[in-house]
């Protein structure tokens, strides 16, 4: 009897799970979406008051040498190597910052929290982070603020009140628009497309997919979403998954979105090895170096990404500005060294710029 009851509970859990609202495309999250206009009209930026947090009793760090730690989602992948390089570049340029990058080897929320916690104890002046989970990381960041540490996020946000500023590489709807527009151009308005993502739990990817679904519905209604597959941050798995998609859908598959800097080159490789160059478009987020061979072979026409080195660089510059007190709540722009003035949006976010589309013509100029 006890077994039956328990089995019933598990069963109930299962059913209620399926009852969860599903988004249009698998892999998206269930947050509200705000697709951009189909033409190039920029979204009207609604002015929002500062909603970031404030460190308590932060010492005056103006002009003083500060130690900063950067805790990305995980270390050992090209993307965060690039941001880390940008941070180091900025620290060198500033001269009065001692910065290092340290983090978990797996994109694991618990490990990341432990790392940040340890650095709070060791007494750093500033923390840069890219959150594995916006909510899970919040308590430890709030703890950092309460110890007077300056906290700035980049790449993946936390809840706003848990950090001071967030350097946004590109807005979700902007990325979504760039990806979907490029796909429509390369594969056709009525193309059948599939998505290779990292995991369904990765917030940025989930957000992008949701925004892409919304934007496609609005501006490219004939585009047909076939399937989303998970491939971790794993080269070979991404390749296998993309290959299976190609095999499964045959000619019905006209395009693959790569949602991570791992999935995109692996998908391009799968298309190349399947001999489908030109028949299946690969559009995605990726670093230029990994994509050069495929762009050179015309297998991939456009790669969407911001410059992660610039992202790290901007994050470091923002942190310095916060520490110096030159960036205060309510500001509308911030000076970020060689990047010039960056715009403040959404209350406490700093926008790096519009996403950049690499093509055969310009990809050679980038090295990261």
């Amino acid at each position, binding site marked *: 009897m006890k077994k039956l009851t328990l089995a019933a*509970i598990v069963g109930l859990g299962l059913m209620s799970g399926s009852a969860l609202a599903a988004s249009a495309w698998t892999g998206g999250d269930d947050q509200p979406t705000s697709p951009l206009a189909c033409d190039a009209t920029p979204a009207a930026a609604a002015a929002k008051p500062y909603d970031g947090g404030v460190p308590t009793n932060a010492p005056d760090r103006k002009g003083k040498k500060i130690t900063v730690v950067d805790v990305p989602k995980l270390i050992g992948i090209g993307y965060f190597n690039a941001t880390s390089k940008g941070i180091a570049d900025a620290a060198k340029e500033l001269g009065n910052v001692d910065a290092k990058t340290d983090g978990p080897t797996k994109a694991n929320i618990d490990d990341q929290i432990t790392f940040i916690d340890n650095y709070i104890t060791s007494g750093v002046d500033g923390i840069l982070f890219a959150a594995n989970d916006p909510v899970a990381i919040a308590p430890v960041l709030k703890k950092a603020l309460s110890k007077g540490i300056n906290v700035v996020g980049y790449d993946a946000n936390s809840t706003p009140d848990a950090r001071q500023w967030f350097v946004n590489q590109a807005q979700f709807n902007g990325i979504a628009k760039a990806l979907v527009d490029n796909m429509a151009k390369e594969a056709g308005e009525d193309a059948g497309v599939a998505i290779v993502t990292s995991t369904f739990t990765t917030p940025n990817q989930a957000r992008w997919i949701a925004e892409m679904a919304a934007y496609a519905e609005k501006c490219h209604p004939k585009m047909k979403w076939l399937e989303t597959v998970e491939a971790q941050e794993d080269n070979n798995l991404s390749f296998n998954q993309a290959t299976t998609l190609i095999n499964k859908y045959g000619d019905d598959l006209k395009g693959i979105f790569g949602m991570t800097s791992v999935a995109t080159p692996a998908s391009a490789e799968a298309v190349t090895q399947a001999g489908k160059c030109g028949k299946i478009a690969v559009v995605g987020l990726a670093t230029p170096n990994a994509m050069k061979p495929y762009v050179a072979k015309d297998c991939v026409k456009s790669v969407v990404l911001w410059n992660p080195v610039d992202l790290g660089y901007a994050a470091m510059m923002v942190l310095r500005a916060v520490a110096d007190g030159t960036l205060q709540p309510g500001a509308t722009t911030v000076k970020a060294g060689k990047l010039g003035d960056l715009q403040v949006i959404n209350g406490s976010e700093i926008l790096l710029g519009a996403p950049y589309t690499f093509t055969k013509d310009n990809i050679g100029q980038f090295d990261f």
Partner: protein
Amino acid sequence: MTAARFFRHETILAILTIVAMVVLASLSDKFFTADNLLNQGRLMAEVGLVSLAMTFVIVTGGIDLSVGSILGLTAILLGVFWKNVGLPLPAAMFLALACGTFAGWVNGFIITRFSVPPLIATLATLALYRGLAEGISEARSVRGYPEWFFFFGQGEVMGVPFQLWILGIATFVAAIILGLTPFGRATYAIGANEVAARFSGIRVNATKLWIYTGSGFCAALAAVIFVSRVTTTRSDMGTGLELDAITAVVLGGTSIFGGRGTIIGTALGLILIQALKNGLALSGVKGDGTIVVIGLVLIGAILVGALFDRNRGG
């Protein structure tokens, strides 16, 4: 079994832990502060709870690889019962704990009823439970828990983190059960010679079933604390937890072949690993370096223990 024999590995480990503490404290003045140590206690509560149950499992000669997945499944069910089913949070907590415990019972059932080696049974449920967590949640997080719920993971009682009390009490209870009760004797007997234990009138299958169920319960309890600590629910919670727990237990001197091991050893193993992770980070060693050190310490400690064993055993 003489006391000297019993505590041999634990003694080495205690010395090692003290040495490590002293060295780490001299490397960073931030290490040996009440604040930091209590905080570390908070961070190791989840692994700690799981390791306690894992000690019992490994003493019987088994292993439970599915604990990380049970943690993930329980966390997801907690969120789903509360948010999607609409149960009051205490009821959701209770039900989620029950489900996690049931998942442990299923492990035990497969192992005892079908004589599947524990490694294989829990390897399969490792994938199954994680898969259920992903499927049930469809990878959605559940957030927005009420403030009172955060007490379990973030609150303090008399200046000591709440979960450290739980871990402390659980350690005490586990040490007593394993060391001083008939159940503990049965656990050792099963690990040392299952057939002889059965021939001596020990209820082997029932004992194992209890132990795996308990392992599920500990993982479920850890899940509630974890969710409360990080204020959100995700299906990938607890990934890799099993290896951390096994490392702590094995470092604590529990024989992977069963029949030998103590809760004190496991506790020391946990403390040593946590101290190394924390202390090395505070002394400026990066995460990757710390992993290497922990690997070396694990092999080294067991090696020293084995050498002592051999010298005494002749």
